[in-house]
């Protein structure tokens, strides 16, 4: 299936099934990208999973996003879905406010999302409602912040031997 046809097919199917769920869709570097409303992510993923023609039954990856200047929609999650038999790939994005970072989990559809969603909770503080075990996965459990958010520095704050003069900062 050509990329353009895939783009319009998914557009039409989502419109027919959910109405106004699609916010935008485009072909980005040869990759169909759909931005949808964050509340309906689980329903959309389940629909794409069960649809006989599209059958996106493999979750390639899932990642958190943070755009601090995108007021009201600072945080996001990106999902990459794959149809293995036909080798079709699409990307779905959702955006939501950093003040209320709660989105539905997709673990009922993809068990593989369990650890991925835990990672995004760990690094971005995104709360996946309905997740069976939402706790930190990679960082120390006593960590008090979500380190991949842009407002936090990369460096370890406890070092005393780093002189800014020597490091040109």
């Amino acid at each position, binding site marked *: 299936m050509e990329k353009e046809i895939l783009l319009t097919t998914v557009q039409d199917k989502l419109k027919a099934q959910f109405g106004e769920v699609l916010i935008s869709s485009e072909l980005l570097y040869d990759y169909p990208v759909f931005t949808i409303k964050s509340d309906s992510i689980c329903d959309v993923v389940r629909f794409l999973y069960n649809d006989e023609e599209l059958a996106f039954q493999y979750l390639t990856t899932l990642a958190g996003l943070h755009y601090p200047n995108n007021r009201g929609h600072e945080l996001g999650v990106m999902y990459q879905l794959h149809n293995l038999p036909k080798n079709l790939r699409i990307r779905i994005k959702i955006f939501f406010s950093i003040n209320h970072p709660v989105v539905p989990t997709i673990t009922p559809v993809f068990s593989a999302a369990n650890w991925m969603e835990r990672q995004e909770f760990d690094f971005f503080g995104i709360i996946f409602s309905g997740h069976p075990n939402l706790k930190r996965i990679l960082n*120390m459990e006593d960590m008090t912040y979500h380190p991949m958010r842009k407002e936090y520095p*990369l460096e*370890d704050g406890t*070092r005393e031997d*780093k002189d800014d003069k020597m490091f040109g900062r």
Partner: protein
Amino acid sequence: MSTIVKSSIDIVSAPQGIEGPGFFATRIDKVVGMARANSLWPLPFATSCCGIEFMATMASTYDLGRFGAERLSFSPRQADLLMVMGTIAKKMGPVLRQVYEQMAEPKWVLSMGACASSGGIFDTYSVLQGIDRIIPVDVYVPGCPPRPEQVLDGILQIQKLVENESIRRRDTPEYKQMLAKYGME
């Protein structure tokens, strides 16, 4: 008949003492120190590329066995020397500390490479900025990674420490104070 050629390999010379026909008298701590220094059992705690360099140190070209340390102990309970080689993430910190606590006295620690000694290039929230924040360290080997010669030099430094320390170092007030600083006893 072939003549027996004297080996050119140096072996450890006897400590200072009084020698006579049929006896040799010296101090017990000298003998114990010599024995300990030349039969160290290292525990390799290798987490990254320094561990690869350590493998070269163990292999035939550099051969740590020449210094009596070829017997690696993969159980902390039989190990004398903890060799920390590689980046220690903060999440690995409690594991490393437990390994150290499981080792029996007397014990020494060698920190190999920039990451184990100071965090190295990983100045980031997830990496421990030097293992001396959680366990005491005797010898630091700099480098990224250090060459096997440097590791051997570090082992020789450890051997010097082992030879010259009191045989019951753990009873000294300085040692207890040092452990207390790390919240151990």
